[in-house]
């Protein structure tokens, strides 16, 4: 059955022609910042917050919030692409490059599983969180990252679909073999490259 057209109805925002070239396939530009979540917003107080790198059930290194704030951070402007088809261009974040944390631990792991408050997880190859591609972000648009957008700190990996930029991140598990995280287990692509439109498993 073909759906009848509802006269006069159209999508809220349209990608401008000038921006079309910058967008991965199937995406449209949004000017707001949709809040998407798989569960209730955690509210971990900063004095209880920590970020850990673990391997094989052992914690290799932990940073408290104060220690994390002492690490070198940079401000970056990036485009972000959500698998639900909205993209936001020119977003400004401040964060610690992930290698600053990972390099403090001697390892030969090829994959990480980022884990967050509330139980969310997502997996990434180590090479995708190094080389200037990933940050542990704590400021968005010049302000401390609000809880609904993943604050106090979230992963920021803009070259992949935004479900890989885990909100409320609390650490990374180092792995030898790739292990699917939350959405990857429910049918989403293990890697998630928006430029090759890798939304679902098997794409």
């Amino acid at each position, binding site marked *: 059955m073909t759906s009848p057209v509802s006269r006069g109805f159209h999508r809220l925002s349209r990608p401008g022609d000038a921006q079309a070239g910058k967008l991965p396939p199937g995406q449209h530009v949004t000017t707001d910042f*949709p*809040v*998407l*979540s*798989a*569960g*209730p917003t955690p509210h971990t107080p900063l004095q209880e917050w920590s970020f850990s790198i673990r391997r094989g059930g052992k914690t290799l290194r932990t940073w408290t919030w104060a220690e994390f704030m002492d690490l070198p951070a940079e401000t970056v402007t990036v485009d972000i692409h959500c*698998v*639900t088809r909205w993209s936001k261009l020119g977003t400004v974040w401040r964060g610690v490059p992930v290698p600053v944390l990972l390099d403090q631990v001697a390892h030969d792991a090829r994959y990480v599983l980022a884990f967050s408050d*509330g*139980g969310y997880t997502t997996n990434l190859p180590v090479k995708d969180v190094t080389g200037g591609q990933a940050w542990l972000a704590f400021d968005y648009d010049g302000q401390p990252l609000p809880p609904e957008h993943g604050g106090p700190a979230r992963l920021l990996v803009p070259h992949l679909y935004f*479900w890989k930029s885990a909100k409320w991140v609390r650490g990374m598990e180092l792995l030898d073999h790739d292990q699917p995280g939350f*959405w990857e287990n*429910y*049918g*989403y692509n293990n890697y998630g490259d928006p430029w090759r439109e890798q939304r*679902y*498993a098997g794409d």
Partner: protein
Amino acid sequence: MALDGNAIGGLLLEIFAADMTSAETTCAACGAVRPVAGTAVYLRGPGTVVRCRSCTSVLMVITRVRGRNCVDLSGLDALQARP
């Protein structure tokens, strides 16, 4: 956003060909029993996540992959439709 099982009534109608909002859920993690309408529902993300209001564990996850609904009910011990 956090809603309740009423908000997925239409989606569940599509999946089960029946109105499931009064169906009783039993949480596999904590045993809490509630109608679907009483569960906590997170919509609009890559998928729909239905959680137990007592312990927040995931009861159901529904994603739409290439136009088909994929339903994971492994967080439920039981889902019993009411007549």
